[in-house]
């Protein structure tokens, strides 16, 4: 099977900080791939490189096996890749419906739309209401500016937008970090439904229970590199955490202890 989205040897430097240090990446069709790693391991940098939000200094990206250059987020979007960024890409002073449709607004049918380019605000509001309802995020009004929402509600808007528009891949950078238990559950359900539609999902998360609940495969990022690709079933949560922190290493599918003290500390 050709991976849907693939990267080889990505490098990204910020001044004298190396955020990506030859990172590889493989996303298979129809899977939920969790990307985990310590803070600063380069997870966000990795997916930003994959979605056109930053340009890697070196390395190659392949979509459906073909080498591509994704120069900006718009190109990624055109390729059907939708992303929920960690910094919540929502425009604070605009309302929820406008945010959901930002960059692909609906116009009124007929002359009003083609010549006068008038927006169909009513239809966008209705469709937004449906998308938000899918996610079961309770909101009083779709016309209130996003800045007046709570952190979690705002996150919900970003997730709803990505899921509504994705045609090829959905990438989510810590989508549930600010969400409540109920809302988190809804996002996880949403991810499952997206996968059931046959679309692969990349999920960055620090929440191990979530990761183990939903991921088909786990990509472990460490010091700017992929250090392991594992299946949740093959390892315990503690082992995975140990791999993440460098206490264990995976070679040929088997875990190898490298840092004995650390491994003991976490109870292996």
């Amino acid at each position, binding site marked *: 099977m050709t991976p849907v989205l693939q990267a080889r040897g990505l490098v990204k430097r910020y001044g004298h900080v190396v955020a990506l240090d030859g990172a590889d990446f493989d996303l298979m069709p129809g899977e939920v791939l969790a990307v985990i790693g310590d803070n600063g391991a380069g997870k966000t940098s990795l997916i930003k490189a994959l979605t056109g939000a930053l340009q890697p200094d070196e390395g190659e990206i392949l979509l459906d096996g073909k080498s591509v250059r994704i120069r900006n987020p718009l190109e990624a979007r055109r390729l059907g890749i939708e992303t929920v960024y960690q910094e919540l890409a929502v425009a604070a002073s*605009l309302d929820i419906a406008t945010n959901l449709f930002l960059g692909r607004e609906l116009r009124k049918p007929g002359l009003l739309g083609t010549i006068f380019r008038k927006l169909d605000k009513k239809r966008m509001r209705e469709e937004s209401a449906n998308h938000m309802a899918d996610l079961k995020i309770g909101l009083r009004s779709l016309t209130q500016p996003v800045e007046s929402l709570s952190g979690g509600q705002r996150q919900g808007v970003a997730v709803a937008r990505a899921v509504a528009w994705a045609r090829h891949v959905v990438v989510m950078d810590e989508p549930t970090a600010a969400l409540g238990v109920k809302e988190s559950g809804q996002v996880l359900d949403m991810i499952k439904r997206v996968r059931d539609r046959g679309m692969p999902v990349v999920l960055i998360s620090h929440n191990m229970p979530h990761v183990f609940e939903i991921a088909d495969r786990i990509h472990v990022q460490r010091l700017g590199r992929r250090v392991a690709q594992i299946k949740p079933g093959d390892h315990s949560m503690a082992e995975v955490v140990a791999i993440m922190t460098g206490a264990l290493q995976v070679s040929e599918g088997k875990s190898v202890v490298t840092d004995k003290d650390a491994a003991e500390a976490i109870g292996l």
Partner: protein
Amino acid sequence: MAVMEATLPRRIISTPTAGPLGALLLACVFFAVNSDQFLTGGNFSLIIQQVMVVGTLAIGQTLIILTAGIDLSNGAIMAFGGIVMTKLAVGSGLPPVLAIVAGIAVCAAFGLANGLLVTKISLPPFIVTLGMLNVVFALTHIYSEDQTVTDLPAALTFLGQTFKIGETNVTYGSLLTILLFLFFAYVLGQTAWGRHVYALGNSQEVARLTGIRTQRLTISVYTIAGLVYGIAALLLVSRTGVGDPQAGQTDNLDSITAVVLGGTSLFGGRGLVIGTLIGALIVGVFRNGLQLMGVPSIYQTLITGILVILAVTVDQLSRRRTR
């Protein structure tokens, strides 16, 4: 959380133009009480004629400020455009209409240049347009050889002609200005481009990540603003009947004043172009009203300064109350 329904009066108060509108009405009431000549149709027509040039410049300024930019070069660009269209119309044998088009195109070109510098080299708009101000100012004087251009063909002064609404003479230029405001209110409020301008002003990074082509958008904003300055140039020419290389030297700050008085945030992303119209009218009403009251020039300056601060204060306090 309990939800209270927003009642209609509450809604009106909470629109961002409510404060400026209140200030404008207050000013009108004040001058109506203090001067017999203020409250006449003719005088209002006059005020609109007097603010139409700065008002039109302020439309372009609003667009740019909404993207979190600022334009110090707009008055200078307008002056250059005015000289180009009048010199071509009078001296070159070009048909007047083409001369007008050329003048507007030159303004749009300077807008484009501003936009390219702001996006392609990521320079701060303040400094780009400050530099451009000097450049265009110098070009105006070099190109015009500091000569006022007179004896203009009718096409260039047509907008200064009047027609009657009831008893009151209204110039076509005033009408065009009002139409421009309505047009841009529509564009900003009802089209995708308009929404993107707001998104860009909220945060360039957010707009970029949402897939908006921020560079292209920014360039289009500056270019369209330039085009609007070109129309302002035509309005100016039609109003004064000459091409004047000295024109527009204080119009950059005046147009910013109108925008800010109209409730638009200098940090971008928040504001309405209709507010700008109100802001321009506030300035015009004060200048006219104080003069009608016979206040000496220097005191007019003093009072205008105080009232600019006061108008924004009223606006700010009225917002605070609805919070």
